[in-house]
C-alpha cells in the first residue's frame, strides 16, 4: 500500500525498530521530515513494474568462497578487539543488562 501520512504511533514504532530514542519534540519534527521524504519517494508507485524481477546486486558474481583456513593477518588479539570499547571488564565487552535480575 502506498503511504503518505505517518501517524505519531507509526513514527514511534519506526524509532523503536531503528533503536533511536528522540525526545518527544524531536520525534514530532523527525516524523514530519520522514513524512515529507516518504511522500516524495511514493512517486515510484507510478512506474509499471509488472513482471520485472528485483535486482539485489549488480556484480553478476555468485558464490564467492574462500577456504576454511585461518588468515593470521586478520586475527585480532583480545586487546585489539577491546581497544575501542567504552566499557570492558576482564577481557569482555560490557553490555546493558537484558534480564531484570
Amino acid at each position: 500500500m502506498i503511504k503518505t501520512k505517518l501517524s505519531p504511533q507509526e513514527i514511534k514504532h519506526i524509532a523503536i525498530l531503528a533503536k533511536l530514542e528522540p525526545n518527544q519534540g524531536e520525534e514530532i519534527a523527525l516524523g514530519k521530515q520522514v513524512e515529507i521524504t516518504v511522500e516524495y519517494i511514493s512517486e515510484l508507485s507510478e512506474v509499471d513494474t509488472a513482471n520485472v524481477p528485483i535486482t539485489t546486486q549488480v556484480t553478476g558474481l555468485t558464490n564467492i568462497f574462500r577456504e576454511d583456513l585461518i588468515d593470521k593477518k586478520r586475527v585480532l588479539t583480545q586487546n585489539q578487539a577491546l581497544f575501542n570499547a567504552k566499557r570492558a571488564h576482564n577481557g569482555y565487552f560490557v553490555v546493558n543488562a537484558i534480564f531484570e535480575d
Partner: protein
Amino acid sequence: MFLLYNNIKELSNDLNAKKISPIDLIDEAYTRVKKYDSKVNSFITLVNRNDSINTAKELLKVKTKNKSPLYGIPFVMKDAYVTQNIPTTAASKILKGFMSPYNATVYQRLIDCGAILIGKMNMDAWGHGASTENTDYGVTKNPWDQSRTSGGSGGGPSAAIASRFCTFGIGEDTGGSIRNPAAWCGVTALKVTYGRVSRYGAIAYASSLDTVGPTAKSVLDCAFVLEAIAGVDPYDSTSSPEPVPHYSKSIENSLKGKKIAFPTEFYNESLDVEISEAIFEAKKVLEFLGAKVEEISIPMLEYGIPVYYILAPSETSSNLARYDGVRYGGGRDLFTKETERRIMTGTFALSTSYYDAYYKKAQKVRTLFINKYKSVLDKYDAILAPVTPIQPPKFGKLLNDPIKNMTADLYTVTANIVGVPSLALPCGFSKENLPIGMQLMGSMFSEETLLNIGNMYQQETNWHKQVPNLIKD
C-alpha cells in the same frame, strides 16, 4: 610554481631524477595546509607533520626498483576509510577517536606503492549528504567562495585538491559523493564501476551502491591512482575479478569514432542555465576532437531519486545498526538529525507492511534502470550529463530542505543504481567564478574509455588548471 601544482607524472619523474624528494612535497603540503585550511576546514585529522616527514624518510631508506608513479606522493582520504594509528570518524561524534585495528585495502595498496597519507578528510557523516554540512567537525567551505558549500558527501578531499594541499584523494561515491564535490570544487573525480575497487575497510553507507574512487586535479592523475587501487580483493567478496587495464596507457587515443549520447530530458528547466550552457560548449569540444554526440531519450531520470532514496536509506538503516556503543564508538543518541531521518526512512521502507510497496518496488525499478542504461551504453561509448542541477549553494540551503537535499543528486544517483562508472570533470565557470562540472557515464568496466575521453578533453581545455583566488596570494 608550487610543486603541488604539478601532476603525478611530472612529480614522479622529478622524484626519480632526485630533483626533488618526498620531504619537499610533504613540507610544501603542510605549509599550504597551515596557510589556507583554516579558511576551508577540509581536514578532520591532519597527520602529525613529523610523522609524515618520518614516513618520507623511511621511504627513502629502502631501495625500490620500479617505483610506482605514486611513490612519495602526498594524498588524503575521505574519513570513511579505516587506518591503523590514525583515527577514523566518518565525520560523526560516534566514532570520535576510533582507532581501527586494521587498514582499508585501498589505503594498504596506496602505502604499499609509497604514497604518503597526510590527512583524513571532512565529509557528510556516514556519507549522508551533498554538502559536507552534515558533519560533526564543522562545515567544509568551498575554496572558490567560502560562503558556499564544497559539495558532498566528500567535500573535504575535493576542497583539499582544489587548494592544492596534496596530489590526490580517495573518495567514496554512493549517490554522487565523489562527483558532486568535484564539480563544485573544480576538480576531477571518478565514480568507479561497482566492484572495481575493494570496499574492505570502507565504512559502509549503502552496500549495494558504495564505490571507492580517486579524485585529483586531472583525469590523467586519476588514471594513475586507479591503476594502483583497482582489482579483486579476497577480503571483499563483491570486488570484481575483471582484469585491471593499464589505464594511463590508452588515455591518449584519438576520440575519432567515439559515440557520445546526449539525453535531452537531462537538459530541462530544472537545470541551471549556466551549467547547461557550459555542457553545450563541452559538447562542441568533444565534437571538435572527433566524437559524435547524438541526442537520445532517457525518460526515467526523475525516478532515480525515489529509487535511491529508498534503497540507500534502507541499506544504511541496516549498516548503521552496528553503532550501538558496545564494541566501539559512542551511543546512538549522537547521530545527527539528517542521519536519523535516513535511518527512519529506511526502517520504514523495510518494515513488514511497507516492504513490498517501497523496498521491493525500488529493486524492480532498479532493474528497469539497468536495462535502459545497458540498451543505451551498448550503442554509445559514454553518456554526457550534468553532475548537479544547481551551482554550489550557500550554507543552510540544502541541509534545511529535505526535498532540495535529495534533488541535488538528480544526475548522479543513476550511475550508482545501475553500477556503471562515471567520470566528473570541470567544464567551465559561472559568471560568479564558481566551478561547473560535467560527467561522462559508461558501461560496466569502461573506465579506460571514460578516462580517455576525459583526458583528451583536458588536453584541449584549461578549466581543470584553474585555482581559486584563496590560494593565489
